[in-house]
């Protein structure tokens, strides 16, 4: 059992959890993830490790309530426990001093971008960060990102905060501006966003790393469910990734694969709503 030490609500659907998982935290590096299973009947899902605290033996996870498992997790509180946590999994992000880099986070992807941003700053980079969200509510970790960035740009789809538009707008400006001298781009967010970023940086010939959130079961290279096509070759996101050269990723294929279980997710969500409703009925 892995106890939840604390919980903080970052946005209406996004929560931050600090979880006691000393083994997963001990060797964790930026870019690593864990596979968790919340309850006995639960599924195994991958979540990026946002931070860790060696002294406390904890890891930090930031979760957006989308499917049944993430909704269930987001309904849990400090004092509750998660059944299984295994990690750190995947290859850590290659961190080097490129000179100038852009760190692009979209939605809850900003949480995954944060440890990489921190590491890139630590390696001596000049860091330009771009945080995108559908609306003001979904722009997260602004302060944390500012702490490790030389400059931060914020975009919202609806213009409720920062600049109205999408993350590629300020990124294009940065890439066109020779003074910024961007040598590498790191992007994490929804697949269409990472695809758009990769298409843009390809025009400028700037190396781009993206993190692929494929559907996983074991997360240790055993099922092949997370297979992705990179430069025409089959790779497993869990052990070969999760980060790949954005210019080589077949995004359209992954977008399709990630839709494999949409009908099941709908069913599971309905089930969860029913369970939650009935548990409310019995509550005093």
């Amino acid at each position, binding site marked *: 059992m892995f106890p939840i030490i604390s919980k903080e609500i970052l946005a209406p659907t996004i929560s931050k959890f600090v979880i006691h998982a000393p083994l997963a935290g001990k060797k964790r590096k930026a870019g690593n993830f864990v596979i968790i299973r919340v309850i006995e*009947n639960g599924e*195994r899902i991958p979540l990026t490790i946002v931070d860790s605290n060696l002294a406390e033996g904890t890891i930090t996870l930031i979760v957006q309530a989308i499917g049944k498992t993430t909704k269930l997790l987001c309904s849990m509180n400090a004092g509750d426990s998660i059944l299984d946590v295994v*990690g750190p999994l995947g290859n850590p992000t290659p961190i080097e001093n490129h000179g100038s880099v852009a760190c692009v986070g979209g939605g809850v992807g900003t949480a995954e971008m944060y440890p990489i941003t921190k590491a890139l700053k630590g390696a001596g980079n000049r860091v330009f960060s771009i945080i995108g969200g559908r609306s003001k509510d979904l722009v997260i970790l602004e302060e944390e990102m500012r702490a490790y960035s030389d400059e931060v740009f914020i975009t919202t789809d609806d213009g409720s905060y920062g600049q109205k538009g999408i993350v590629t707008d300020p990124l294009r400006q940065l890439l066109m501006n020779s003074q910024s001298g961007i040598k590498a781009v790191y992007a994490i967010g929804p697949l269409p966003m990472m695809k758009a970023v990769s298409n843009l940086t390809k025009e400028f010939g700037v190396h781009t790393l993206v993190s692929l959130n494929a559907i996983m*079961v074991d997360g240790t*290279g055993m*099922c092949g*469910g997370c297979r992705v096509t990179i430069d025409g070759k*089959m790779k497993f996101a869990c052990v070969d990734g999760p980060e790949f050269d954005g210019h080589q990723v077949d995004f359209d*294929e992954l977008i399709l694969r990630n839709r494999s279980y949409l009908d099941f997710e709908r069913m599971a969500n309905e089930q969860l709503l029913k369970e939650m409703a009935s548990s409310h009925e019995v509550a005093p």
Partner: protein
Amino acid sequence: MTVLNPLKPSERMKIPRQHSIEQLASDRVQGFTEVSFGVDEERAMIEATRCLECKNAVCVEGCPVGIDIRSFIQLILQKDYAGAVNKIREANYLPAICGRVCPQEEQCEAVCTLGKKHMPVAIGKLERFVADYEMEHNLFTPPVIAERRDEKVAIVGSGPAGLTCAAELAKMGYRVTIFEALHAVGGVLRYGIPEFRLPRKVLDLETDRIRGLGVEIQTNFLVGRTATIDEFFEEWGFSAVFLGTGAGTPNFMGIPGESLPGVYSANEFLTRVNLMKANKFPDFDTPIRMGSNVAVIGGGNTAMDAVRTAKRLGAERAILVYRRSRQEMPARQEEIHHAEEEGIELLLLTNPTRILGNENHTVTGMECQRMELGEPDESGRRKPVPVKGSEFVIPVQIVIEAVGQQPNPIIQATTPGLKTGKRGVVETNEKQGTSRLGVFAGGDLARGGATVILAMRDGKQAAVAIHEYIQSKLRVEENKVIVSTGAEVVGT
């Protein structure tokens, strides 16, 4: 010893081999309950009387772990079933599992003297009988561990190789910890072999008994990532490590259409059902896609398990597509027979060339070509050759590929100095030792792909080698102490 079996050999030979009692095919495809109920006491007794009790018991040599088969059958004749299972357990700590999944027809039963002219003694069924009898009547008695030792051994992977190695070392008194990456224990016995061949109750009981020997099992621990082998020696205080991580990385055919949703590796398909219970969705959260027509590619036991699982998930047509003929199928005859009883279609001498999808990107069919057998290849089996212009399409909605597995690469990649050969198979010597001192390996990781019993054989052999290794290291250290004490004496 009193004469247990008054029958003359010629009389014994006349007794027909006893068959298992099996669930009707039409019933068993409705769910995941076990196909075979094994033999009952009466049949077991008849079967035991068939044994010729050969002086030179060749069956024992035929057993990869060297079970004293003749003796355990004699104990059955004395109705000492608990004694019989304990006799097996001296050589093999997982009798209820081996009695179910071992290919006895290629091992002990293949060399049985009776089998030369008649049917061999059903050794596997007798093994299962005594193990089940013990289970049902609660007769299990844990072995006495003579001597407790301080040295710690790490076992990586809780599959058949690791469990066996752990049991043997624990019996010798070592402090053993098994590290398992998944949340449940058993490795391929858990995620790979379906419940209708190995009920989870049996697996749980056998693994609990290994815990009962004092073996600690740490789940959710991926060795190589959570901690490395070097750290096991330097920080965790282990004296030796056994690697039994199996061959879990699935191969894919490399044909167009493989990335379509609806195409699974057999490993993923079976893991979703066996480990995650996707067959019980939505009560369990892990989903699985199904269709009325399912094609499984391959001819091994994994392919059999996948196609029979697909049938149980409701496929009207569950089709096994294999490029060679029935004779070359690596699957056990018994499994092929059971599959056919369950209505599995065998599409032999057929090779898939393409998986077809529609505009919604769901699988609609699989294009195949006919094959014919040519000259023998390096495996000694006749090589399948495509028949030109023989392409045809079978309408399917789900495709499952069971075309082999390779060792998982994580241990090799994170253990400097660990020598590997073709496809990441860890190189071992005849004592299961690897190129790294104190690191031993066995099972599919060292074989590339084999059986449960061969993995167990390796685990057992490695336990003996680990014991020798630790003891010789202790002697060296002891000598060092003596030498240094001697020096002190000289100095004073």
